[in-house]
């Protein structure tokens, strides 16, 4: 059982170009900045970047692991830094959480998502119903 103030274990989520393609196919978001390096550079990005929503989807998996996917009632985040994914490279998202409060069996969780030493989500918060 989780408790207020508890720091939840950090988990690592690998991200590579193949995952970006899989997410594009699963979500229908085929923006070329997530696939095509030449295009990404042409619009001023350092390289291909991950969909912000892929980062959030992986953070959603972190949340689902706490009490199951159906327990997640609210989830919000700000996209603060792009997750840059060069070709033939696997970057790691390090996700951790802190339990801010538990009231009426609803836990408020604060998430930290780090890639390459930088926070890529800001103000990432969720509410989870505990069984």
């Amino acid at each position, binding site marked *: 059982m989780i408790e207020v103030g508890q720091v939840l274990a950090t988990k690592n989520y690998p991200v590579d170009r193949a*995952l970006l393609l*899989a997410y594009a*196919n699963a979500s229908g978001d085929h923006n070329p900045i997530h696939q095509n390096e030449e295009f990404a550079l042409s619009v001023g990005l350092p390289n291909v970047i991950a969909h912000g929503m892929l980062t959030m*989807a992986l953070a*959603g998996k972190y*949340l689902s692991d706490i009490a199951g996917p159906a327990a*997640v009632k609210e*989830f919000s*985040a700000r*996209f603060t830094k792009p997750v840059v994914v060069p070709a033939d490279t696997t970057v790691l998202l390090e996700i951790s959480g802190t339990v801010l409060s538990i009231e009426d069996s609803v836990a408020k969780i604060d998430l930290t998502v780090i890639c390459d030493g930088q926070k890529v989500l800001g103000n990432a918060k969720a509410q989870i119903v505990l069984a």
Partner: protein
Amino acid sequence: MLDPDLVGRTFHGAEVVVISQSQIDQFCAVVGETVTEVSPPTFSISITLDQSQTLLQDSGLDWSRVVHGDQKFVISRPLIAGDSVTCSSTIESARVMAGNEIVTVRSDLHSGSELLVSTWSTLVVRA
């Protein structure tokens, strides 16, 4: 530029989208989710992004210049295979900051009269 008269107006989609198990399975596979009886927490964006673009296509919002700023989900009940949902989208707010338009679009997914999921996407339209 976005038509300011449209702020606060809700556009109701006529299209019924039927959620399939293969769609949920595909999304679960990407994130490594093994529980596939319900959809993952952010799954609904794959419905609302496409639907809201269609519903707001005449709003003056330039989707080609849009960068995703913030995202929020409120899930009353996760989508499951077999759900027939309709989408309604509302431009809740629009303002200009440092030359960029900041637009918040809310999309609601209903099954009949039951509200299942609401999503809020804050979009930054680059100048």
